[in-house]
């Protein structure tokens, strides 16, 4: 009984701290700050956090585990209604930026040159700068080739932004079947057979592209 009262008290402190902190708090942060005067092990604190986490199941707010710690955030289910609170629309990002960010996330550490090689176009400095300013990417070193280009990698803030704890929670890369690229002439029968399938899955992105350029031209 006394123990459970104590636990309740610890849970209250943890809950209040994570709600009020304004940034994700890690187990270490909790131990070093609000729980410093209690002799609690890291694993004991982790259990308490889990207890708080569970107590929020089914509510409008959840306690999520991020790369840099724990944070309360609203559940994704209610975002359609919550968006009414703000007149400004959530930012949308250009394909150039998303492709560059994906390459850095999945192929880190990577140089700008390597990104450009895959994308087939120059990467604008604005994109790199904007992502650095947001704290999503950082220079983690330099490649030992002529020019010593910077090697980029993602940061914990990038994962926090996407509500993720680690890089392996990113969607899996979808490998493209080599056969869909048989360019032709040599196997005309095969080609005809394939034409029916590959179009269907590329369809959506094309719709996107079309409508995108439409909106631009207005």
């Amino acid at each position: 009984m006394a123990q459970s009262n104590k636990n309740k008290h610890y849970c209250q402190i943890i809950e209040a701290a994570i709600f009020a902190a304004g940034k994700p708090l890690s187990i270490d942060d909790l131990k070093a700050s609000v729980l410093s005067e209690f002799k609690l092990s890291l694993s004991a604190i982790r259990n308490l956090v889990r207890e708080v986490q569970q107590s929020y199941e089914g509510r409008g707010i959840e306690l999520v585990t991020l790369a840099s710690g724990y944070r309360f955030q609203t559940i994704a289910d209610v975002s359609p209604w919550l968006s009414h609170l703000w007149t400004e629309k959530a930012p949308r990002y250009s394909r150039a930026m998303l492709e560059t960010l994906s390459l850095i996330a999945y192929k880190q550490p990577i140089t700008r040159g390597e990104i450009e090689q895959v994308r087939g176009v120059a990467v604008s400095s604005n994109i790199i700068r904007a992502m650095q300013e947001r704290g999503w990417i950082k220079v983690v070193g330099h490649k030992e080739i002529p020019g010593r280009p910077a090697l980029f990698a993602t940061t914990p803030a990038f994962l926090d932004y996407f509500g993720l704890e680690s890089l392996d929670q990113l969607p899996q890369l979808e490998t493209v079947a080599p056969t869909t690229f048989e360019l032709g002439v040599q196997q005309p029968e095969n080609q005809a057979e394939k034409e029916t399938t590959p179009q269907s899955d590329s369809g959506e992105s094309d719709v996107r592209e079309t409508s995108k350029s439409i909106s631009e031209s207005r």
Partner: protein
Amino acid sequence: MNAEVDAKIEDRQVITKEPEQIPLAFIRGEAVLEQPEDLFIPPEALEVILEAFEGPLDLLLYLIRKQKFDILDLPINQITAQYMEYVEIMKDLNLELAAEYLVMAAILAEIKSRLLLPKIKVDEGEDEDPRAELIRRLQEYEVFKKAAENLDEVPRDERDFYHEPIDIAENCQPKIILPDVDLQELVSAFSQVLKRVDNFKHHQISAEVLSTRERMTKILEQLEGDTFLPFSTFFDFSEGKQGVVVTFLAILELAKEKLIQIQQNLALADIHIRRAPLLESSE
């Protein structure tokens, strides 16, 4: 929320679904409804086309997927002529971007020319199909093009979830970090005091005096209210001779400073100690 930052990042808007028959662009008053059928882009529409695609790989990928574009059927002369025209128009546009499309045209031209040459079947394995490298690049690009689309779907801050620090209770004050004090600071402060006070009588402070002072504090703590405590209470024989002496000195010092009262009712009876009673009833 971070509208300014985001506006910077946002090169172009992506609006997901719209009716498709809205013109792609207007060129000399004429609506262009369709995406290009092949690499022949009307020069006037070049800017729009270039912006619609993330580069020549993206355009090529589109042509292959959507228009069943056959790399082998490219009329090279026309392509070359067409692209030279673009270069003229490009003077006002993003030349760097145009260059990339030109490189792609050149690659395609090279592929075409190599395929047209009579095949000399000398070393089968060694002579790589010129299309292989292009296919590899297209594949790699498509993987990340798709990854970018997937990343865009990952729930993210301020679009799919929100958070804001909540207010703290009013009685919550910031923790004050108290200054550190070095023992030496304390010692030198004390020696400063000693230096200043020339009539300070007890500047000879020995180990005994200090432990006596500490013991005096302890004895005073033990004495509560008006109750008498037996003399023996204050002695802990486990401390040895030295401890007993320190306690005894402390009691004498306390008596001298009139902080305690010592009583013995009969000769050889127990001695009792209590706090010194009030000299005057000021309570």
